[in-house]
């Protein structure tokens, strides 16, 4: 069930990513929806699921980008583990701490990608810093919005169910 959910989320992310890239050429520089899937998948703190999910999502990202195949796979495996590690220690999930978590994972992913490319590829160049910062910020904002939205929906659903149960009684 968890795998299916993740698969559906990744599929939706790929479709939105492709549509975004078609509509606006800079979309892939500004947003990383697959990274959001990775973080949400790892938020429950299950290390194995986080690492394997990260690896799979990274390989999908690699299919949609150039360079050495596996750069994102490596970085996202680390990010999956890192997110699960942080999620286990983050007891109270306030908006600010969640924003920091999402942004930090995005920043770390960029750093790992650059480090790995520098180690493996001669003269790999670097991504533009302003766009990297934009990506970090959009990941933080989108992540928090989705997280808050999901919490709100869950709450409404629970309230509706309670109301329905009391009416039936």
């Amino acid at each position, binding site marked *: 069930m968890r795998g299916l959910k993740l698969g559906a989320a990744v599929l939706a992310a790929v479709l939105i990513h492709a549509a975004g890239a078609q*509509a606006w050429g800079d979309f892939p520089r500004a947003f990383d929806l697959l990274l959001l899937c990775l973080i949400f998948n790892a938020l429950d703190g299950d290390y194995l699921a986080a690492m394997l999910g990260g690896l799979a999502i990274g390989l999908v990202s690699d299919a949609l980008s150039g360079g050495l195949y596996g750069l994102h796979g490596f970085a996202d495996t680390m990010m999956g*583990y890192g997110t699960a590690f942080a999620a286990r220690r983050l007891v109270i999930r306030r908006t600010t701490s969640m924003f920091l978590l999402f942004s930090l994972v995005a920043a770390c992913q960029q750093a790992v990608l650059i480090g790995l490319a520098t180690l493996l590829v001669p003269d790999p160049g670097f991504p533009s810093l302003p766009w990297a910062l934009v990506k970090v910020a959009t990941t933080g904002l989108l992540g928090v919005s989705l997280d808050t939205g999901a919490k709100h929906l869950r709450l409404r659903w629970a309230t509706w169910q309670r109301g329905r149960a009391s009416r039936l009684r």
Partner: protein
Amino acid sequence: MSFTDSVRTERRSRWLLILLLVAQLILLSAQVPAAGGERTRLEAAMVAVVAPFAHLVSASAGLLGSASEGLALRGRLIAENRRLAAEVESLRRERARNFGLETDLGHLTEAMSYERPPRGALRVADIVYVDHASWLQTLLLYVGSAPIERDQPVVSGDGLVGRVVLVTGPYAKVQLVTDRAASVGAMVERTRRQGVVRGAGGGALEMDFVPLQADVREGDQVVTAGIDGIYARGVPVGTVIEVSPGNELFHRIRVRPAVDLGRLDQVWVIEREAVPEEVKEALPDARP
């Protein structure tokens, strides 16, 4: 879960992480010597899985776009039709002026026993996904059922786009000419001075190995030189936008790509036979 269990799980996960990372690092390192060469089967499989979804989006967008264009742009199409009719007329006049030149050229090359290398047939391919702006840029094509091969050049009406680096089913992955890992044997059209064009990041190109004494000016056209065993000679690569002294030996030349990669929806793959591997191996320096 008790504290001890939690610590044990964490320790086990850490080992698994290290194992996974080391395995991936080995796979990545194995690709490095072949950078620009063979791609992995895993990549082919993943592109084959992801590309159909990108194709679905691109086809839907194309359908929506053409429907709205049909409704809204009738006037523009009529104007374009008039402009094209005038252009056809002017080309007809030019053809009439050049009548016989091709036959003369044929006779002359025959007399010199010169044989032109085959130019290769052009094959139209739809773009299903393009990311030309990111650091790790890419282009995915739908090429249909007829097979194409790695290293075949990809061009548009304006000039060089890149080369095919991976073919999986009806899809192909293209290394863009603006990619930092790409290099093209090129020459300044006006002086025929040769060099190597590389991606410089940010969508720009740089031309290397042009000596300081060579005459290069802003506005010069750069075309493929046909010396790298991949690209045919004479395909526009870009225009020189800046020339400055790079180091003691070579100019630092910045080139604006001929093709606006953000406005592409279709490209042509040139079905050209690449130079055989054994010839390349015999002359390792022939390829930039």
